[in-house]
């Protein structure tokens, strides 16, 4: 949808945003793969052996090869719904990310990813009407341990 701002009232935009609050899609399970972990560490030049070498990782107290935290974004793009069909505005801007980290993601782990919209509001600023939505993804391993929480803020303007 690409209606102009005159076609969707503030009340309608607000109602749409409020309708987004709550779970998004089903929980998804995904395997933490060695190739994905190595590729991500290599491409940012993070040569800490905990991302490559199981023995080195275990010697430092980890359960196995450790995934770089931004591997969460692989699961974001491949396992979750992240686009919204906003009925107002012309562009969606990625504004902010917040992470909480609790338990390392280890190669061989099976993660359960759950997604929910936790906040959505309509604002008015210097550049006009702005929708702000905050989605939250929780990543839990097969041991029931919460690995990380990723909150992403998008602006619709």
């Amino acid at each position, binding site marked *: 949808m690409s209606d102009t701002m005159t076609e969707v009232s503030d009340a309608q935009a607000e109602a749409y945003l409020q309708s987004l609050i709550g779970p998004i899609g089903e929980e998804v399970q995904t395997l933490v793969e060695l190739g994905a972990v190595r*590729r*991500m560490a290599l491409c940012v030049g993070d040569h800490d052996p905990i991302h490559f070498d199981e023995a080195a990782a275990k010697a*430092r107290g980890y359960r196995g090869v450790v995934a770089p935290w*931004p*591997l969460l974004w692989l699961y*974001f793009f491949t396992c979750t719904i992240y686009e919204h069909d906003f009925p107002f505005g012309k562009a969606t801007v990625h504004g902010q990310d*917040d992470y*909480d*980290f609790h*338990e390392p993601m280890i190669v061989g782990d099976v993660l359960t990813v759950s997604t929910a919209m936790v906040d959505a509001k309509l604002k008015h600023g210097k550049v006009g009407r702005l929708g702000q939505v905050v989605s939250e993804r929780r990543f839990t391993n097969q041991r029931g341990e919460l690995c990380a929480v990723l909150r992403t803020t998008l602006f619709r303007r």
Partner: protein
Amino acid sequence: MGDTQGAVFDDIEIGQYIPAVVKGPMTTAHIVRWSAAMENWHRIHYDWKYATEHDGLPDVMVNGSWKQHVMIQLLADWAGDTGWAWKVAFQFRGMNVPGDTLTAWGRVTGKEQRGRFGVVDLEIGMLDQKGQEGTPGTARVVLPLRGGPPVPYPFDPAILDAA
């Protein structure tokens, strides 16, 4: 956690900078490798014509999540195996393009001993070669006390309230 000693809470002073991490100059190869690693196929990251003509950008864009990784690397290197980078938040305020050299930095803004551990707050960011800030943020890192146990994982914030 392992025994690679990172920062110790007792040594931390408010206002101090932690060791920076410098990356670059960035190339399109960096950007495409990262896009492939995370399967982010937004065309602004690899299609110069689309990025510049359709979206009006100056060039293809360095991925925001790549910049986040570097800043998490900054915190993890500083905390070592004995500490824990607990919370990180970033805002995307500036664009970075091939040719940029990026410096991730952090400065201590607060510290508090809680139970058997120390909690350190930082402001963080990433400067380009012109000194322009594009990714300001905040972080909270948990560190061991001198002579104390390493921060355990899974990291449960309740340990900070334990006697």
